[in-house]
């Protein structure tokens, strides 16, 4: 009897296009959000996620069958996917939303990812989802957990080390927790969210960027997946923090005491 062939793993890496980390963000004139006419790049935590997927492939070679990158966003998000492809992902899915649509919320994103995973079932299914722990623009940090909840999969959040045991279909993940780290063993399928220390993302090389242009790139609409990305929350107003007021110089102690009294401070009574 021939041994049954080992099931190969498929990895899904959701990425997000976010305002570049180096940009100084400003609130827009209508106070509805931040000014988006600035440099954008891939969310750094998602870069770590792509890098981890590629490193797993380098470590386990052919046992990782595919690395699929996915993003939800306006047409410009395609360049973020290209970056992921240039870093080493095999194929990409772009769930396109209109240019002026509000940013989707974690639950909407998680439901979209679930729909994508369901869709991949007939082409081998998804075994591991690696995503950033949060995006640096809205800092919500919920998508991974929500996806694991919706799918009923294992979740390993804030990962700082990922190791796979493919024959046993298990993963050992070291997580960042308060004041230390925690090592957990979980069954595949698995959702991993990456923390900063997991790895150092590579800078895509020029030849790889060229090769990325030829990789398969699929475009979908949220309606195709049967998901509704309308936010449930309404942003009322976004304002900048109050400007810090400068201090004053006092000439002598009496003046200082007078100023303190003016500000409402009183002497300690013995």
């Amino acid at each position, binding site marked *: 009897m021939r041994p049954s062939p080992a099931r190969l793993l498929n990895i899904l890496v959701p990425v997000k296009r976010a305002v570049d980390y180096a940009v100084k963000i400003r609130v827009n004139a209508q106070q509805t959000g931040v000014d988006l006419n600035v440099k954008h790049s891939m969310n750094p935590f998602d870069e770590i996620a792509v890098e981890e997927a590629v490193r797993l492939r380098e470590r386990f070679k052919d046992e990782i069958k595919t690395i699929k990158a996915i993003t939800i966003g306006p047409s410009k998000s395609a360049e973020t996917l290209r970056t992921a492809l240039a870093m080493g992902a095999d194929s990409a899915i772009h769930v396109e939303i209109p240019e002026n649509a509000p940013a989707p919320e974690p639950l909407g994103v998680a439901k979209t990812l679930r729909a994508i995973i369901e869709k991949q079932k007939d082409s081998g299914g998804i075994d591991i989802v690696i995503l950033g722990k949060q995006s640096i623009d809205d800092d919500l940090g919920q998508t991974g957990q929500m996806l694991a909840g919706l799918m009923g999969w294992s979740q390993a959040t804030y990962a700082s080390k990922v190791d796979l045991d493919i024959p046993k279909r298990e993963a050992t993940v070291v997580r*960042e927790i*308060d004041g230390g780290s925690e090592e957990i063993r979980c069954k595949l399928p698995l959702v991993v969210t990456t923390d*900063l*220390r997991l790895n150092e*993302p590579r800078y895509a090389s*020029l030849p790889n960027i060229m090769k990325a242009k030829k990789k398969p790139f699929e475009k979908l609409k949220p309606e195709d997946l049967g998901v509704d990305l309308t936010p449930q929350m309404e942003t009322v107003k976004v304002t900048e923090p109050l400007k810090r007021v400068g201090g004053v110089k006092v000439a002598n102690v009496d003046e200082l005491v007078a100023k303190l009294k003016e500000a409402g401070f009183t002497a300690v009574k013995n």
Partner: protein
Amino acid sequence: MSFTRLRALALYKELHRLGRDYPDPSYDFHGKLRRLYEKNRNLTDPVEIENALKLGEYIKNETLALYSLRKYRHLKRMYPGSTFDPLS
């Protein structure tokens, strides 16, 4: 075209692309890159050419390290406590 020529051109392209992301706008990365290349354009000695290419690759690696360190530090400052640092 010889192999070293291709190598030099590929390196130039890589460095030029890296220069676009240089964080300090007052630093003339592209000018410096071009001047260094022009200075070495007449090199004929294979050893000298090799050394010049090595220098270029060294600069590339250092620039890459600079970028990733800058990003890492920025994130670490933005999310304090998110990573456990035994030294702090």
